């Protein structure tokens, strides 16, 4: 690799994707694909008093088969933001990797971090440039959230496959189990949830999604694989310890067992 020097008239600036194009890296569109491609499923994000909780199940499916049981769908985008993915797994993970480098690259070249809105727009452009592949069936739909240091609040951005992005006031879900998760959060949501309440609601939403959707994995108590739960606050991105997530799911399972699988009217 040579030292990437550009003259002032064709400098790619702080954009990493522009740099990749200038260097001749191209996204390769697949031709005929063998078999079916793994898909990732339910992710949720909701606002609470200190910021945002984001969570995602661990299952990837290929057709009717389970392709992976321990796939991660929630990632730190940078110190103060997180991104969760649903859709064609391989491309989604690659998009997240590119997005992470893009944010860090901007920060290092420019010496300042992008605003939260700027990050959301960057992600929208990546989804949009992925549209030709989405039309072939490889849809990638991210969910983005972060802590806005200027406004001192957590914010959530939802996307569609064309790169349209919409700021959500309180919560958003994505993936095939998304509708079930969204209903669960909608019924249990109120302003100013505590961290514990918000995590509990996210966990319950994933439980309900897994209960109704074949593409969403529930808590795997046999293998000890639990959904990834993370918070983004003024202190940055923190992944919730697996042991705490396991306890939350344990409590939900215990309650359901007593009621023989019935939700029993308890939202949290």
């Amino acid at each position: 690799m040579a030292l990437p020097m550009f003259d002032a008239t064709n400098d790619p600036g702080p954009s990493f994707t522009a740099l990749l194009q200038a260097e001749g890296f191209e996204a390769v569109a697949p031709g005929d694909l063998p078999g079916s491609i793994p898909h990732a499923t339910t992710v949720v994000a909701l606002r609470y008093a200190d910021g945002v909780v984001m969570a995602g199940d661990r299952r990837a499916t290929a057709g009717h088969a389970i392709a992976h049981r321990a796939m991660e769908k929630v990632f730190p985008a940078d110190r103060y933001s997180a991104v969760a993915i649903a859709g064609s797994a391989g491309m989604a993970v690659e998009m997240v990797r590119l997005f992470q480098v893009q944010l860090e690259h901007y920060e290092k070249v420019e010496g300042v971090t992008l605003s939260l809105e700027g990050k959301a727009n960057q992600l929208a452009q990546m989804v949009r440039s992925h549209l030709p592949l989405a039309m072939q069936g490889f849809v990638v739909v991210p969910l983005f959230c972060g802590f806005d240091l200027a406004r001192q609040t957590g914010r959530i951005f939802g996307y569609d496959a064309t790169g349209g992005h919409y700021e959500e006031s309180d919560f958003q879900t994505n993936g095939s189990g998304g509708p079930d998760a969204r209903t669960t959060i909608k019924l249990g949501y109120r302003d100013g949830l505590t961290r514990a309440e918000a995590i509990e609601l996210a966990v319950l939403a994933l439980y309900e999604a897994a209960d109704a959707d074949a593409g969403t994995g529930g808590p795997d108590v046999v293998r000890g694989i639990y959904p990834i739960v993370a918070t983004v606050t003024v202190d940055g991105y923190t992944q919730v310890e697996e042991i705490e997530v396991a306890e939350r799911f344990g409590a939900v399972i215990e309650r359901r067992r007593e009621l023989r699988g019935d939700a029993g009217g308890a939202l949290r």
Partner: protein
Amino acid sequence: MSMPFYAPPEQVMKDRAEYAQKGIARGRSLVACVYDGGVLLVAENPSKTLHKISEIYDRIAFAGVGKYNEYDQLRVAGVRHADTKGFAYSREDVDARSLANLYAQYLGNVFTHEMKPLEVEILVAELGSGTRPTQLFHVAYEGTITDEDRFAVLGGEAETILDAFSGLFVDGWDLAAALKATTAALAGPGRVLGADSIECAVLAEGATRRTFRRLGDAELTDLLVD
């Protein structure tokens, strides 16, 4: 038809070297050294926004002295190289040695082929891990590259500062001691540099991924107090 005057290559090189050295000598100097928790980089720099010291990658820092626009261009090229390499391969494949070599080639090329040599001296510092030791690569304006494993001094008054600093350096010292010694060496006899006239950053052990951190005025003042 006019004939260009003949100038012997020795003379051309000597003139260019002198020109570059003069340019570098106009700016302030910089010291980097290892301490018990990582690598410390200190530059005399009254500006809070036009940095001499910057982050390149998780465990790699860049420092330059001389003409700002020239070393800043090299810094951006370094970030681009590192991010592209880390994206194409893996984060742990990004190393300071290959980057320092690229810088050396580039500076050497400009020195011999261009009208004007770059009036810069740069340092690529890498915080060691597992398989790689901590290294300070010093690249001069004409592409000469040297590697140090304890300290390096860049700038017009490098020799004087190096003499002073060699006497002060202690293996395994802590951040406060290292900072006091580097600041004293940069200041020279009869001068004191305060927190507002130096720029300081560390590559510090303990971070999960990005080890580069700038030290702010408040932290510097605390560390410089006896």
